[in-house]
């Protein structure tokens, strides 16, 4: 990415962070929470 303009590099990084947060909130965190669920007596 060294050949890219600075603004484009910042944009790519921000998009990558946003995508990472979406993946965490939509899939990773619900999966982690489900592994904790104790169905015996909620």
């Amino acid at each position: 990415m060294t050949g890219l303009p600075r603004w484009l590099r910042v944009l790519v990084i921000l998009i990558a962070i946003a995508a990472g947060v979406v993946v965490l909130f939509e899939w990773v965190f619900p999966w982690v929470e489900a592994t904790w669920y104790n169905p015996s007596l909620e």
Partner: protein
Amino acid sequence: MTVAPAKPAVGAQRAPTPVWVRATRVLGWLLMTAGVVVGLFIVYLLFWTGRETDAIQAEQLTEWEAQAESWTVDEWEFDRAAGDAEGIESLPQSGPVEDAPDPGEVDEVIVDPEPGSAYALVWFERDGTRIVNERMLSVVEGVTLRDLQSGPGHYPASADPGQAGNFSVAGHRTTWSAPFWDLDTLQPGDEIHVVDLEGRHFVYDFRELRSVLPSDVWVLDDDPLGVGGDHWMVMTTCHPRFSAAQRLVAFASLQEVPQ
């Protein structure tokens, strides 16, 4: 007067960064990333999950509003914006609404709700003042992880509201809008109001709180305290807050047993 350090000459080669410095740098980035992920997870649990539950509860309160129109209770005015039901005091307690089946004759809910769908309305009062949760709670059918993301859930094998046996409800203490966050503030004599899908209104008297182990499923028995009586309501939630080590259980009995 300070002297600025001399700049390296153009073309001079910098000394290579030692391996331990690079390793420490990578470790630092990994730890910072892990900290951010953990922080985001806390945000997810405490705030993000509540947004989803609030949206589902609002949707189900709309369903209750539509359902209430089919009931024959003139005074029912459902103020969805406030999550409240003005005029609820006019509903007959522990008895039939006009033209509705007598709970004594019909001992179970005729409408069989799908898992995760609206099952009953519940709210708490002390001397006419709302306690535990400012809003009415739409209880859904089922207690799976998915069901409880919609709100408090009715244990499917337990009794229906007003029915002989143990009407049991589970709810989150924290996360997913935390409907039972203040369940420990109940005091003997507090009223727990329940309206079922047919508009029948039951009032349970709160008896006592107990903290038990998650494996203590005896609290769901028909006579959980072994003191007699066969019209119980039990609410279970995690205890203490932010922990699943124990369960807080609120026991209540029907104020007026249908004849």
